């Protein structure tokens, strides 16, 4: 890596650590904030003696609308209370973070496991295996996920825990994009010198996949993972918004936003706070993902190495022309 930096003077303008870019710091900070909020939702809300279930009817006016500024904002109710029942809004959002982050992370993990496995196999075994798996991905891509999820939540018995159902549904439908990406990347890595060397030396497919190809996929995966979490948080929110997500009283941002939409003109803060939370957490993850993508820049790393190889083997023109086709493949994979 050090000679890379020498070769490309632009890289030397980067901060001391590649991971100290503003997007990573800000994005990571926001994500960390919400992780802490989720972990310490209990103690934090206990500071003001609140929980996301208790009603404070004395804070509501005769029309069940919170009294006072900003939907009843006060030292004991930082974000005010909800109309109709007077539940502490900060508690709902703090506890709702658990649901949102939990479902986002868990379903992403499921998708990544399925996606990486299928992507690796499809990329490394061309021909029939690849064709079957790739068409399966296409089918899943075209599947009307939202309608399926709604239908599924109507059929699944209510004794089945809702959060688990959402994790499974989101996880199971989220893998194809990851699988495609991994497949593309695997295709290029398979033709790299060190992979060919391992093959020639008689290493098993499993060994090559795990020890030669997997490490090359990691930067890409980390970026992809970070970028896909906000989409899942939003998907959970939309399902809860549509009334097929988390059942009451478990706090959920999506359901709260859905309830609050009708109150937008009467009690705007009821909508603004959970909306802001959803915005911030997706923004934070996207920022972090972007930052990581720049820092790890799998594409740039690969491209640079390609160029390096190409340059060192410039001895024959024919060889150079075959190498030149490689970056095009990388580009294709990276675009997914």
């Amino acid at each position: 890596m050090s000679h890379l930096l020498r070769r490309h003077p632009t890289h030397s303008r980067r901060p001391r650590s590649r991971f100290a870019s503003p997007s990573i710091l800000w994005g990571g900070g926001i994500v960390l904030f919400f992780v802490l909020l989720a972990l310490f939702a209990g103690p934090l809300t206990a500071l003001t003696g609140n929980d996301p279930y208790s009603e404070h009817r004395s804070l509501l006016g005769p029309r069940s609308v919170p009294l006072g500024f900003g939907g009843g904002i006060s030292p004991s109710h930082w974000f005010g209370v909800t109309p109709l029942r007077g539940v502490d809004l900060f508690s709902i959002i703090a506890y709702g973070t658990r649901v949102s982050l939990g479902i986002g992370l868990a379903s992403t993990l499921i998708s990544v496991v399925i996606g990486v496995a299928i992507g690796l196999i499809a990329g490394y075994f061309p021909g029939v295996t690849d064709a079957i798996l790739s068409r399966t991905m296409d089918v899943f891509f075209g599947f009307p996920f939202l309608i399926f999820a709604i239908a599924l939540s109507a059929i699944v018995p209510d004794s089945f825990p809702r959060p688990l159902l959402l994790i499974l549904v989101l996880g199971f439908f989220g893998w194809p994009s990851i699988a495609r990406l991994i497949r593309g990347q695997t295709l290029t890595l398979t033709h790299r010198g060190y992979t060919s060397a391992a093959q020639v030396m008689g290493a098993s497919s499993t060994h090559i996949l795990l020890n030669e190809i997997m490490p090359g996929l990691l930067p890409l995966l980390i970026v992809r993972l970070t970028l896909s979490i906000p989409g899942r948080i939003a998907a959970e929110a939309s399902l809860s918004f549509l009334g097929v997500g988390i059942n009451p009283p478990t706090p959920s941002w999506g359901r709260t936003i859905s309830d609050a939409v009708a109150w937008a003109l009467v009690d705007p803060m009821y909508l603004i706070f959970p909306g802001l939370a959803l915005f911030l957490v997706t923004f934070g993850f996207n920022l972090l993902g972007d930052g990581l993508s720049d820092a790890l820049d799998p594409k740039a790393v690969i491209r640079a190495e390609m160029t390096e190889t190409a340059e060192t083997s410039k001895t024959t023109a024919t060889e150079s022309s075959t190498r030149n086709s490689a970056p095009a493949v990388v580009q294709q994979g990276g675009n997914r």
Partner: protein
Amino acid sequence: MAFHYFFAHRLHGKRGSVRHASVALATLFAATALVLSGCGSRTSQTGIGASPSSSPNTSASATPMKGGTLTVLTSQSSLSLDPATSQSLPTTTTGLVHRRLTTWKISHGKTTVVPDLATTTGTPSDHGAVWTFHLKKGLRFSNGKPITSQDVKWGIERSFSDTFTGGLSYHKQLLAGAANYHGPFSGQQLNSIETPNDSTIIFHLNSPFGAWPWVASLISFAPVPRGDGTQKSYGNHPVTSGPYQVQSNSPGRELVLTRNPYWKASTDSVRKAYPNRIVYRMGQDDTVAAQQIMQGVNGGDTSILGEFVPPAQLAQAQANPQYSQLLVTSGDGALEYIAINTRHIRNLAVRQAILWATDRAGYRTAAGGAIAGNYATTLITPGIAGRQKYDLYHVPTGGDPARARAILKRAHVTVPTLKMVIQQNKTEQASAIQSSLKKAGINVRIQVLDSGVYSDTVTNNQGNYDLTIASWQPDFPDAYANLAPLFSSSMIGNGNQNMSRYSNRAVDALMTQATQTVDQKAAGKLWAQADQRIMHDIPVVPLIYSHNTFIHGSRVAGFDIGNFPAYPDYLTMGLTRD
């Protein structure tokens, strides 16, 4: 059997079942001083009236003009006008298109039963077990054919067919020999309905029944041309007898009613038929529709909202003097209650604990505050003849969780987690109940169901739930319509509304006795007795008598709610000149 959902499903824009065919089916009426002018035989006009002080339910004072297009914004996704499947009130949507033997006249807050197709509200004989009606002369359907007594009979017989479900069933319980009758389509007639000539129809009942003139005003007594309406889709484009006919009906989009040229105002003492056209826009989001009406944009000034005003818009409109003029709130209407599935919760002590733990104040706040209604203790709703006000338990409005705990402790029972099924629009109220029961150590798991799934779940034969929140307004102002559908053991499952699955022989016998008592005073006493007897078993926890609030555009006049039902009278509303 108007099983009244509150606001329609907000997001999906549909109501569960055909029984909500009327746009504004829900509940209520103003009740403080309603007295049934109890005539024993009810051959003359019978009615309930309000004391003069209790008619705040009139909105627009201007008189409507003839003409114009009135728009009804509704979240429902389809509107069926089939008399065999509808549960619509005589004074809402189906009243515009279907006439019946008798109908309701609402004036000065007082609701009376008056002749419609018939010349009288019925002549009883055999102590009230046989009722005879004669049709007016010159009545015609929208297809130009004359309306005969056979058409009325055919309409009633149709409602027995297994093809049609979800309609009202009062007549099915009362007509003699109807138990094994399955409709006229295979050639069988119902012999307890006689039509000696084209203008006479005679009903033979199982037993004397004094409130038959009210039953004859229900949608099942609308005429259907003999031989017509064999298809399930008949309700989309029915032949009509009222002042309007169906020009087009596209589910999910709109229903357009235009004038029926064969309807004559001279034969109709009730329907004013002011607008030239009435257009129902379906699949509307009721929060958006309410805004549209308040601000008078997109034709909102000539529109009404078919559902109740959603809580948020209600709070918004109340706070604004200009908008609050557009609101009309009814008096005490439907009974809102928690139905306890007595087949799952057999232990009376547990039901007692639920009653004591229930925080009615919290429920009412979650329903929108004081405007949502008054606290309920009786099962017969205010204003119904014979109702006796009582409070068996004197539970404080906020509940008494300590007492509930004590009851459970004394009975040595631990209550498993109870499953409460609700529709989405009841989420806040259900959460309020949930948190109040939790204080007494009773855990409740809420399951939110789509409205179609919900109505099946609570009325099917399995009864896979422990609790539900329901609401009931009688279909006609008689204690029979209050109690029999909810607490008779014959009304469990099969699409019926006994959601507490309550079965008590003594209560059944008492209700049968009350039904057969023609003297209305004596009957009223028996019903009041049944009311208290049922509450001793606590199959339900009465919550509030709901007050329905509706909204109309600034150019809509005659948007009035009488003391019964708790819905605006669609038959008399119209538009003003600008």
